[in-house]
């Protein structure tokens, strides 16, 4: 009777001793890793799932009309769900119509002809293919065409994508765009704050948050967050202009700051920001015109 009891006690003591020796090393090993059930269970594969869910939101945006992996292998893939949200510079944007003060509205390039089957599907390859097209979505449409709240069906996939990979910045920016489009401004703000908590240095999210405050006319908060966004961009971007990415995002940040200062009547500060826009914009002469207008006392938002 005594022997098993002694063995048991010795075992417990050994376990606790080991725990105290191994614990700190284990914590050190784990310190750089993310916590949470998804991170621990799925590991890196959750990023794949997050990308899949984000793609699903794009599929939903197109009401199911989307190239398969076989079609994509032929090089046909359009993703303007994110372009619509301003998360990406539109590839086919007509820059003459581009309003520098507002993010790009959804633009359809040649690849976005509504009701046009001559996209990735092409003509039916055989009679069976022609018949089969009756059974799947073979027309290019957008969910937004199905009613005012048509886009709400993409939200669950956005939420899932964010859940599985909180580090994917695009999810938050795109999600916020669509939430605002659905008049869910509070939810958009909350979503962006969640994204910022997970990605504290993301200037894209800061931009969207600044946009949200701007639209609410909370200029002080907008100014603060946008200035932080600009600082983060400068810190992360290459100092050489020819090697900078995301100049489009930076120009949006600075545009907003210029408008905010203009609204507040701080003309000099507004001009200072416009000078920075000039360095980022592919059309500096247009920006010169805006600067001249502000100097002459005209508001940046005049004529809209």
């Amino acid at each position: 009777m005594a022997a098993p009891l002694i063995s048991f006690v010795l075992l417990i003591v050994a376990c606790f001793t080991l725990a105290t020796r191994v614990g700190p090393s284990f914590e050190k090993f784990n310190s750089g890793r993310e916590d949470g059930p998804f991170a621990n269970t799925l590991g890196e594969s959750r990023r794949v799932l997050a990308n899949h869910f984000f793609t699903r939101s794009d599929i939903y945006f197109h009401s199911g009309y989307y190239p398969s992996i076989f079609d994509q292998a032929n090089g046909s893939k359009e993703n303007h769900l994110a372009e619509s949200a301003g998360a990406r510079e539109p590839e086919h944007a007509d820059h003459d119509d581009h309003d520098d003060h507002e993010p790009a509205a959804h633009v359809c390039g040649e690849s976005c002809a509504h009701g046009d089957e001559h996209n990735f599907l092409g003509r039916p390859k055989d009679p069976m293919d022609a018949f089969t097209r009756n059974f799947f979505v073979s027309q290019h449409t957008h969910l937004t065409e199905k009613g005012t709240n048509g886009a709400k069906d993409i939200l669950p996939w956005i939420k899932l994508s964010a859940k599985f990979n909180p580090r994917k910045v695009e999810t938050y920016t795109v999600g916020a765009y669509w939430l605002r489009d659905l008049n869910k401004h509070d939810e958009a703000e909350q979503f962006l704050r969640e994204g910022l908590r997970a990605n504290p240095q993301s200037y894209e999210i800061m931009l969207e948050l600044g946009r949200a405050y701007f639209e609410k006319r909370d200029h002080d908060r907008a100014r603060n967050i946008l200035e932080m966004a600009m600082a983060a961009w400068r810190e992360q971007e290459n100092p050489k202009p020819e090697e900078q990415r995301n100049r489009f995002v930076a120009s949006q940040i600075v545009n907003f700051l210029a408008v905010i200062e203009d609204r507040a009547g701080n003309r000099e500060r507004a001009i200072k920001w416009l000078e920075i826009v000039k360095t980022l914009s592919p059309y500096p002469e247009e920006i010169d015109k805006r600067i001249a207008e502000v100097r002459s006392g005209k508001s940046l938002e005049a004529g809209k």
Partner: protein
Amino acid sequence: MNTIQAIAIVVLKEMIRRKDFYVLFVITALITLLMGSINIFNDQSIAGYLKELALLLIWVSSLVMAITTTARQLHAEKENRTIFPLLAKPVSRAQLLIGKFFGCWIACGLALFVFYLFLGLVAASREHTLEIGSYVVAMLLHWGALAVVIGMALLGSIIFAAPSSNGTICFVVAVAILTLERHLNTVALHTGGIVGTITYAIYYITPRLDWAFDVREFLVFHNPMPVFAVWFQAILFYGAYTAVLLLVAWLLFRRRALNT
């Protein structure tokens, strides 16, 4: 006809008393209701993702039910030796096969009706609208596709010794057809050569279960369903394909020796 009816009724009774369907339905309902309870940005009217999830679960459940039920029919009859008193009656092997087919198919049809009814109720509770016609068409196409799957499993139960191997092969083939069939012609055209020709032949020979599978998107995105002439042709195609599978099964089964 009486004989086929009688055999089909026995299969139905077995399905009901085995409780397979109830388990699958409860799992589907639980998962759907759980996913439906998630707060998506304070909007209770979002139903697209729920319909997609529910339809996927319905397809998985129906395939599992159809294949496992059918795969064990003949094997269980032989293992349990119930086939001997049955075939000692004026029952031909063709009648046995057809009776088993109809029993499994009707059972799956009843299960599908319950599944789609549940889906319709869940969707209607969120969207406050229900396109009954679309659900009926989707369900009929689904049922037609299951006829082909059941035919495949019956044929497999004559070729393969164990229901587990039959079931696995049928499931793999069915899933492959559902997900890849539509794209085989694209692959064939880009592969070219003898491999491309074989791929194109497979594209034409294999049953087009993807027709029934892909119309889920119409339900999810509120697109109009194919017109009657089109989906009716699809059902006729499924019927013809099933008949061919059953004919081949009969040709193999009729001369098979059954030793007591």
